[in-house]
């Protein structure tokens, strides 16, 4: 079996499948021209240029082969029969060889059932056809060169036998299916002698890719050196990790790796900030902060906002309504934040609100304070953590109205804002 398989593999690698074949076409079993596009997905062959322009003369020939091979008993033990047989016997031998080859593929895990085996067989048939064509064209050197691209040992043995083959073609009757069969028979005979002469090295060179470890085998155009393989593995692992992170982080619908990383970084910062804020809220008694995360703090927010308003509050009438609107939103957001961060974000987005650092919020508010009537609370930060509600009456379409809910952290000794602060504002 081994010589046969090696020979078949040599034949396979001779005419590399540069064509692409859709599998369904092969299953249709008919159209020879479609075989131009045959692609063996898991086949591992050396890649080297081969003449791809082939013309198939006999559709019936292939169909005949197919019909016969499908009914052929798959057996691994097929010894090399008489190579001089140029009639049906030789044809059957080729059949058997192909069958054994396909069986070998199946054993190797390369074939996924009969359709794939049929495809392989078609491919081999086609390769034989190509080789026959090449030899008919009178360029045995080309054929052997193409054959010997990866398997140099074949090349050495190819010349003489090719010449002999050519003589056979010249002498024999070249017409009809007989011609093709004879080619096939002689071809296989040639290949057998070649492969047997150079068997081990060629076989090894060709069987190496046939091992089950096919995922290491590089695809077309890729190198096989360990560095690129390691690089590929590394990239795959990083992609896995990114996917896992995507599930953890909300708003992770970014496809770009850079923006995904940005999102992750922002989320980590946000979480760390939340820990800070929550640990500050733990300073007991600070009723102003607890309302951020609990329900019963509506009045507390109200009182702190009203108590904290300073002369900058020029629009007193708007205060209660704005505050009411704000507190409702705050409550909703706080409630949602308790359950699920993602839903909290979505809620904010639906309302047209967003989270922003307090520095930005103050900058925006000061920028827009001239054109509208803001109610800004600048509570003295020395009193501990508290809520800061800041709203500006919505004016025309020129600038959006801003409602800002901020938590100002206690700043001891600095006089500014400590760390970042979480704020909800309308963009």
């Amino acid at each position: 079996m081994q010589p046969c398989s090696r020979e078949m593999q040599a034949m396979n690698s001779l005419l590399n499948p540069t064509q692409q074949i859709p599998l369904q076409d092969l299953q249709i079993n008919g159209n020879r021209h479609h075989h131009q596009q045959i692609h063996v997905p898991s086949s591992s062959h050396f890649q080297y240029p081969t003449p791809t322009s082939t013309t198939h003369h006999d559709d019936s020939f292939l169909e005949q082969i197919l019909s016969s091979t499908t009914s052929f008993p798959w057996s691994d033990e097929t010894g090399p029969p008489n190579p001089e047989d140029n009639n049906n016997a030789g044809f059957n031998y080729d059949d058997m060889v192909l069958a054994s080859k396909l069986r070998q593929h199946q054993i190797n895990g390369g074939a996924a059932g009969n359709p794939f085996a049929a495809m392989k067989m078609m491919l081999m048939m086609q390769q034989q056809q190509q080789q026959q064509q090449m030899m008919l064209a009178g360029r045995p050197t080309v054929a052997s060169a193409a054959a010997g691209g990866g398997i140099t040992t074949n090349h050495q043995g190819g010349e003489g036998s090719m010449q002999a083959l050519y003589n056979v073609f010249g002498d024999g009757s070249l017409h009809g299916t007989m011609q093709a069969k004879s080619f096939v028979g002689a071809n296989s005979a040639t290949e057998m002698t070649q492969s047997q002469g150079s068997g081990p090295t060629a076989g090894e060179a060709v069987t190496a890719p046939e091992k089950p470890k096919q995922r290491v085998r590089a695809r077309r155009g890729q190198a096989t050196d360990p560095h690129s393989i390691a690089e590929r593995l590394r990239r795959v692992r990083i992609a896995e990790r990114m996917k896992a992170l995507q599930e953890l982080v909300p708003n992770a619908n970014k496809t770009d790796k850079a923006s995904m990383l940005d999102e992750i970084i922002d989320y980590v910062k946000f979480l760390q900030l939340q820990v800070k804020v929550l640990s500050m809220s733990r300073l007991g008694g600070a009723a102003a902060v607890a309302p951020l995360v609990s329900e019963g703090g509506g009045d507390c927010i109200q009182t702190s906002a009203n108590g904290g308003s300073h002369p900058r509050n020029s629009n007193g009438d708007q205060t209660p309504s704005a505050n009411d609107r704000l507190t409702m939103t705050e409550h909703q957001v706080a409630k949602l934040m308790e359950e699920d961060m993602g839903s909290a974000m979505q809620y904010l987005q639906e309302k047209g609100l967003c989270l922003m650092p307090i520095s930005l919020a103050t900058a925006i508010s000061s920028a827009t304070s001239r054109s509208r009537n803001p109610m800004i609370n600048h509570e003295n930060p020395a009193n501990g953590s508290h809520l800061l509600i800041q709203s500006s009456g919505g004016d025309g379409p020129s600038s959006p109205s801003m409602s800002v809910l901020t938590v100002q952290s206690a700043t001891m000794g600095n006089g500014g804002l400590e760390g970042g602060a979480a704020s909800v504002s309308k963009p």
Partner: protein
Amino acid sequence: MMNTPQQVKNPSSSLKSRFITRFLGALTKINAEDPISSPSPTRIFQRYRRIKVASNKSMAYSVRSRRIWSRAMLSRFRSRRSAFSGRRSSVKTTNCTTINVTINENKTAKGGLDMQTDELRELVPGGEAMDVCNLLDETAHYIKCLTTQVQVMRKIVDFCHLSK
């Protein structure tokens, strides 16, 4: 794809319950030795720092040494504690910077994402000495633990406020 050993364990010993136990213990200790009714800003600030540290520490201890970031955090706490007692832990920082330099040289494959990975390294404790693959892994676990931390703290605040 992430391995979450804490979640597949017996729920009574999950990460969350371990963290809750430790953190509540730390909180009661802080409350005991530092009553709430101290209005001075510095005291409040110190208390805040303590609580934050207690929270992070409890989380790190709950994860033990299973993760690189928790190990780094724990060693940071220990070095800080020893720094209080007079010893300086500058050796650790220099080691981190040298490792950082070598990692920077090897990061050419990532190209334009170096900035983000650097930033991530700063955020995640112990991130300086990790390659990108491990860094992403640690980040995922760190995010998970942070969310647990935030959840628990919120619930405690809720409870405290409701009980007042």
